[in-house]
């Protein structure tokens, strides 16, 4: 059979967002792939130059709508470094709690999307059901389910509400029980799930590093890289946690990526519980940030999908002179043809689902 190209997107149930994966198939085997992105390009870096420092948080929220807080936080961190201010200790702890809650919500959204990619609609509804727990917690904390606008330059928007700690513990306890029973059974212990994910979409650690793959996708290749450990920001160095790295054989396949993300759900819960315990119970959560600033700020954080990087230059005005965003998914997307080649057409969905694409941050 001759080879032909199939457009997987921009209107296709596989694409979680607006992008196009052109796949060349020979029968059922993928011989080549070409990601086409840019459908959602909104010119973030340019828009941010005409808005004040503090108001840009609203924009960075929308970089990835399932992981708003982590992106706003990366931006705030970069601006804080440029301004030379530091968040008060309680503010930093609150940020850690917010970041990890957002990471869990984001990973659950990924898990929810990964289910239908494999034909398992039940996984979608179960994961979205538990995501509500964390959206509720985030809403309690920030007042919004989406685009929370919670981190601010110099701290966070508001203090934690009353009883937040108890509610957090209760939700996490319930969630961990669901993870250990329902999710574990429907995903990890399912034979068909193993058949669909093991050994497909392989990428070697060397290739992954060359192409700039970061985050859980790189840790699935067996590379122990986690910016929360290697280059700790906020108060992560005071927290005892283990970056989830795939150590067994068959590294870099869809299953390894699944396991890394899946275990990060549990790990993030432990981080939240520790943070709730260790954080100072009272104190300021925010310092006043100057309106104008001059200099350069640079922050890289461990986003839900990889390393998020913000580079902000101020020229003494009340708005940035230049902003550069490094999106992890943008780099991962460039490496997807390597993962896809040689696999079956049906697996292209299982592979692209496992790398967790977020088009908002990819197209910026």
């Amino acid at each position: 059979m001759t080879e032909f190209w199939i457009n997987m997107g921009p209107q296709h149930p596989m694409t979680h967002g607006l992008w196009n994966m052109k796949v060349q198939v020979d029968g059922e085997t993928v011989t080549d792939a070409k990601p086409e992105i840019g459908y959602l390009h909104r010119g973030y870096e340019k828009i941010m130059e005409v808005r004040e420092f503090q108001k840009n948080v609203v924009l960075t929220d929308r970089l990835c709508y399932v992981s708003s807080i982590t992106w706003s936080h990366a931006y705030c961190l970069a601006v804080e470094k440029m301004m030379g201010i530091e968040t008060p200790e309680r503010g930093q702890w609150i940020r850690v709690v917010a970041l990890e809650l957002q990471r869990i919500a984001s990973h659950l959204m990924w898990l929810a999307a990964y289910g239908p990619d494999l034909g398992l609609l039940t996984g979608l509804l179960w994961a979205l059901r538990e995501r509500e727990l964390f959206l509720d917690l985030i809403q309690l904390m920030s007042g919004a389910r989406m685009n929370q606008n919670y981190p601010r330059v110099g701290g966070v928007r508001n203090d934690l509400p009353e009883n937040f700690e108890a509610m957090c513990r209760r939700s996490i306890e319930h969630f961990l029980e669901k993870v250990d029973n329902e999710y574990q059974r429907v995903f990890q212990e399912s034979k068909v799930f193993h058949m669909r994910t093991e050994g497909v979409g392989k990428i070697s650690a060397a290739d992954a590093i060359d192409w700039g793959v970061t985050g859980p996708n790189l840790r699935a290749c067996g590379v122990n890289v986690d910016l929360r450990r290697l280059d700790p920001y906020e108060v992560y160095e005071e927290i005892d946690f283990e970056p989830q790295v795939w150590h067994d054989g068959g590294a870099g396949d869809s299953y390894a990526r699944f396991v890394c993300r899946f275990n990060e759900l549990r790990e993030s819960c432990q981080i939240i519980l520790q943070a709730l315990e260790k954080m100072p119970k009272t104190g300021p959560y925010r310092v006043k940030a100057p309106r104008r600033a001059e200099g350069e700020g640079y922050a890289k954080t461990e986003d839900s999908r990889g390393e998020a990087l913000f580079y902000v230059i101020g020229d003494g005005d009340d708005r940035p002179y230049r902003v550069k965003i490094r999106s992890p998914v943008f780099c991962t997307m460039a490496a997807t043809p390597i993962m896809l080649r040689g696999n079956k057409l049906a697996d292209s969905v299982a592979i692209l689902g496992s790398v967790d694409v977020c088009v908002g941050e990819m197209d910026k």
Partner: protein
Amino acid sequence: MTSAPLVPNLFAVCEVLVLAIVWVVDQILYALAGLIPPLTGLAQWFDPVARARLGMGPLGSELLIVVVTWLIAVTVIVIWATLVNLLTMMWVERKFYSRLQDRYGIMISIWSLPFWPFNRAHRPTHRGTGYLQNIADGVKLLQKENITPRNADSAMFHISPVLIASSTLMIFAALPWSSGFYVANLELGILFIFAAFSLAPLGILIAGWSANNKYTLVGGLRAAAMLMAYEIPMILSVIALVFFTGSLNPLTIVKQQERTLFSLGPLAIPAWYVFSPQILGFIVFSVSMMAEMERIPFDIPEAEAELVEGWTTEYSGMRFGLVFGFKWLRMIAGAALIAILYLGGWSGPVFVTLSVGGVPVPIVPEEAWFLLKIYLISIVFIWISWSVPRVRIDQILNIGWKKLIPYSLGAIIIAAAAIASGLWAVG
């Protein structure tokens, strides 16, 4: 165990119905003959009493009446299969997997109808049982435009849903619902059913090719590739069963299973073929049937994750409704086949009959047991298919060729050995 079907003989029941209608028409004809005298002859032709006086044969033997009776019998089966069982099965599936996924599922019911007069104030419109949702969906699909892609092969594109729908309905011509409720009692009924079953993948291939779309093409080719992988083990496991039954007539096969195999204290184990050395064939048959029904672990021809909607992508309106909805009809037929071949068909433990004027009327008729088995088997299939991901095309070919076919050949050897050694008697 004595059996008693609710419909002792579909043809006889329909004939009574036809003769009753003819009697009403005849009275009208006699009344009209008072005004138009030449109609008297026609009225007398329809009148059994007048026929006897004039020395003509009984009305029931006239070709016209026989043909009309057959047409009505076929219509009864089609309505019974589609309007009753298809809708119920769709409702069962949608409600069941919704509950599996922690949600309410469909809720449109009779309370949602705008003209439903009773109890409206206490019943919000979307708090029903959801039985009418599928009818609402069907009405919606009927209203939609039927779009044919510009470059599609129009004739083939439009023939394919007809082929799929008609071949699926053909199954029900030979599929009995009880020892009396069937259209045709064929000696080779099971063979006919399988032949009708395997026509649909041809329709899928035609649909995939003619729509001139890459997704449908891949879906159609997958259906063709899959066909071999599951049809062969399915037929082979039935061959293993035929060693035991010595017949391909569904009525005979069920009759053989109505006796008691052995008693475990108060529990009488029936001689269903699943409790015989056919257990291996039963497993192979059920797995292949799941592929035949295109249910989720094996629904790769329309894998919606990578192929949009697979081979149904380009269909719209009621054509889509036909090819989509008839999947449930095939599920009913598949579950019915499993019940007939391995699970004793309509034989059940209790057949309470009341004698009404000398005619035995069953309280729990055979049809009830048969429907119970069909729905239970279907629910197990639904349960499985909403709990596992979809397998890949090469994996299902592996399962079919490397696992199911050897197992079914093994089932044949076991069956032959059981018969040869006298462990199990034919029939």
